[in-house]
């Protein structure tokens, strides 16, 4: 079985994608690729998508599959099954096709990289990332707000002879201010925020290009030997509900 997917810019054409698929195959197969009318149970399983089917036959293998286009998220996908000619497998294939989903229904997106996992609103776009040994960073932006997720390991070594507040002081992005030590659930944490207090300050800060609102939280996940952190900067007041939600969803697996 093979699944390929990608975003579509502009209009989507099933015929053009079938041609592109044919171009990827070796010469012996190229001529053998033909349009195929999807059986009713395939159509039913893929009812959320605009679909077209294809089949091909090579010297050593045969394949059948579907090209899918999702008008909601504008992603196209190709699913094909090799050496598929058994009616016994039909139920399994239908179940696989029915389980295929190319976007979430709750306008959120799952990010899972190495050992970190987080679900973020789709409106947050990945701006930059960095994966060094012992230190990962993912920066997302939305308008004038940036949210950076951090992960350090091994925590036992990084925290030896000190606590999270001391560790925060050693990281340039977290060294500003005096973080407050907290206990959030089972985790030791530190948090710091800098918000314009008076109305006058807020007005002045609106005229500035650089952000005026800063917030970060670091916490120690002892059982995973990790330190996780979220840092946010913005020109406008934070949605603390969003930051709290990210904190709840952000984990080391």
């Amino acid at each position: 079985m093979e699944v390929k997917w990608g975003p579509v810019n502009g209009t989507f054409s099933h015929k053009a994608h079938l041609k592109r698929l044919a171009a990827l195959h070796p010469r012996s197969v190229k001529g053998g690729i033909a349009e195929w009318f999807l059986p009713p149970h395939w159509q039913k399983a893929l009812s959320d998508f605009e679909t077209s089917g294809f089949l091909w036959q090579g010297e050593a293998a045969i394949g059948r599959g579907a090209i899918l286009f999702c008008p909601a998220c504008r992603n196209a996908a190709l699913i094909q099954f090799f050496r598929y000619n058994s009616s016994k497998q039909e139920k399994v294939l239908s179940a696989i096709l029915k389980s295929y989903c190319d976007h979430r229904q709750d306008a959120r997106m799952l990010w899972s990289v190495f050992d970190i996992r987080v679900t973020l609103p789709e409106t947050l776009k990945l701006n930059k990332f960095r994966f060094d040994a012992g230190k990962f960073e993912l920066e997302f932006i939305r308008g004038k707000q940036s949210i950076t997720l951090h992960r350090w390991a091994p925590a036992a070594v990084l925290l030896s002879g000190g606590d999270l507040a001391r560790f925060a002081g050693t990281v340039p992005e977290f060294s500003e201010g005096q973080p407050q030590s907290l206990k959030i659930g089972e985790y030791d944490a530190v948090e710091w925020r800098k918000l314009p207090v008076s109305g006058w300050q807020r007005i002045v800060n609106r005229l500035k290009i650089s952000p005026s609102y800063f917030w970060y939280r670091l916490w120690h996940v002892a059982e995973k030997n990790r330190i996780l952190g979220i840092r946010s900067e913005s020109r406008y007041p934070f949605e603390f509900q969003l930051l709290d939600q990210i904190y709840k969803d952000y984990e080391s697996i």
Partner: protein
Amino acid sequence: MRVFRKKSGANQLSRTEALEYTPVKSRQITETRLESGEVMIEYPLAVRPWIAAVARRLGGRQDRKQTKKLQLDALGTSVWDLVDGRRSVGNIIRIFAKTHRLENREAEVSVTGFIRQLGQRGLLGLG
């Protein structure tokens, strides 16, 4: 005669082959364990011949050995302690990853980088 010869890839090791090598400590070093548990390595400094010649002409002592000290941090010490002349690089990576609960790939990058740095200073060789 070709002046600019293309580098041959025949001598380059694959990743799998490189991980099978065994790091060995140099015999010319002395290591000291500090109170903090970290290791301090003292190793002879390789002076370039022309610098040595200049030093001789300026009246420097010929028999004097120049040494340098290198203090390893906690993670460096834990890798250094795993180098026993028998464990392969791959084996050291696996133990290091398990001890510190790190991703294998992450441990590989740190351990191989560390071994490379010590190798460049002549403190470790691969056997």
